[in-house]
């Protein structure tokens, strides 16, 4: 894996992309949001420090899913009316990219599904059933959320987006999906709910009083 090193366009500090597919990172020194337009780095604003967060996952946490090792390289924090959740960007040992969601310590792993015809935002409602890969998915909840912040490296530039709609898709088993209406056309993520123990996570955060 190549690890291009360049300098922050704002403060000149060295900025390293640990993952070659990364499109965005934050300068660890001046908190500038740095977008990679290959080789050129562009400063597009400043991130506030993320508020303290109780997720046991952190950048550089490692784990395993479906027989493949993965590393956590980045994180998006979403918030909505009833709380928030983390989407940890993970890179598998074969270089492919996925997401490890942590919503109140309920974990799920998903990947971006190939582009396909998806219902428009206006057509989506709770209880709607749709079929992907011969599995029926039902819209369980619709969540209007916004970015609260990010850290680490992301596979796409995210900055400057306002409220966006997510449709939470459930099945009769462990498979799940998310319809992400922050883009047009919408993006579909498909994946699986996982147990904490199943991921064999290493390099986790420590909690006072818990071994």
């Amino acid at each position, binding site marked *: 894996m190549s690890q291009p090193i360049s300098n922050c366009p704002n403060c000149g500090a060295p900025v390293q992309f640990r993952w070659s597919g990364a499109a965005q990172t934050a300068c660890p020194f001046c908190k500038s949001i740095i977008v990679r337009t290959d080789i050129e780095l562009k400063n597009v604003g400043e991130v506030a420090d993320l508020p303290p967060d*109780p997720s046991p996952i952190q950048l550089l946490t490692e784990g395993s899913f479906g027989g493949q090792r993965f590393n956590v390289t980045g994180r998006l924090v979403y918030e909505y009316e009833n*709380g928030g959740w983390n989407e940890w960007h993970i890179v598998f040992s074969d270089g492919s990219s996925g997401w490890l969601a942590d919503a*109140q310590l309920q974990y799920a792993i998903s990947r971006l599904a190939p582009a396909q015809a998806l219902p428009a935002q206006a057509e989506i409602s709770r209880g709607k059933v749709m079929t992907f890969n011969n599995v029926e998915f039902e819209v369980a909840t619709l969540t209007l959320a916004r970015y609260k912040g990010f850290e680490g490296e992301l596979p796409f530039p995210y900055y400057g987006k306002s409220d966006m709609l997510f449709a939470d898709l459930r099945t009769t088993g462990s498979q799940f999906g998310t319809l992400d209406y922050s883009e047009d056309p919408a993006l579909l993520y498909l994946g699986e709910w996982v147990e904490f123990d199943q991921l064999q996570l290493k390099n986790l955060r420590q909690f006072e009083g818990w071994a």
Partner: protein
Amino acid sequence: MSSPLVAPPVVKTKSLSCPNCGGPVELRGFGHALTVVCPQCFSVLDASTPELKILQQIEERWRRTPKIPLGTRGKIGGGEFEVIGFQTRSVEEDGETFSWDEYLLFNPYKGFRYVVEYDGHWNFVTPMEAMPHRIALGGRPGVIFEGRRFKHFSGAEAVTTFVLGEFPWRVKTGDKVIDDDFIDPPTVLSAETTDEEVTWSRGEYMTGAEIWKAFALPGPAPRASGVYLNQPSPFKSGGMWTSFGGMLAMVAALAIFFSVFSANRTVFEDHYQFQTGDGREPSFVTPIFDLKGRTASLELTVHANVTNDWAYFNFALINEDTGNAFDFGREVSYYTGSDSDGPWTEGGQTSTAYIPSVPPGRYYLRVEPEMDANAGSFVRASNGKMTRVNRMSYSITLKHDVPDYTWFWIVAGLLMIPPLAHTVRGRNFEVRRWMQSDYPPVQHGGN
């Protein structure tokens, strides 16, 4: 790796001051809390804002003391969990209020679980992400999950009547959900429906003793009363019937063993004619036959070609050497005809007598047939007069050492008593369970 990143420091527990009474409010959930209740003044606080806005004050009459104190840790569900929240919920049914307690469990890595108690019955509850497939089971609602069928037990509006500790969601007294329970004991799947969403969870039945052990609580657990919706039946009849089947197979094998080793030998067989009114002595004796080997059963079969008539046979089995005799009689009667219901028959042309144990030796049989002369037809006698004569032909067969299955049926019947009683008690248990449901079984004998 030469990373400029610094791992976040160890996450510390926090303590806040209640904006109402100033008392300490401990946070055990490392920032997951959206709601926290002051343990001193029972103010419900909004933990999502630094100023801890007071949402409500819980009236004294609703306050309850959790049986498992907040902060208690236990080993349960494959991990260590700490009790961080407590809520009481109630349903109203026919003017009665039923309340149960829910303990929120937390582990900073594994997440949230619940322990739920009603009347001494406990459940360990895990939140579910799957939405079980809804089906109809015998005309009632049900769901299929992981290949198991769950029957709808009850559905009611549940109201939160008390909260204590902290919760990762917004909670206050007066919150309402529709709670539907689907059971396949010892598992219950529960659906909580609000205007926004349906949340499923899965409960596994636990006894008070198991909970007391998991959380190392002092003293004995409170006794459970009644039958709870997903309480496993102590009368699982499957095992009893399996062992019954096993024992029956063994007894059957024994019966087959004995029948194989029974000689079942024909020791005497002959055919005779008989007619009334010929002036001859009806009784006669057979030639002598040998009963060899062990003391064993003897089966006599008499077949007579009577139709709409009867015959009676007096038998005596006599030991040639000792003179000991077994006296017995057999009737053969066979009637047939036809009436408005169609053709009918009664009786049969064959009758069997069974003597359980006859010692070996030399024997002969004395036979004395009888018939009703008046049931016969007129024939001209040698003196020229018309007289009624009844006649038949018959055969006698004697079999020595025949297999006997009577004992087998008696043993089978006795063996069936325990599993049958178990099944009946199991049925009663299920009736008591379902009496609490939306589908009470029909009770005979009034209300």
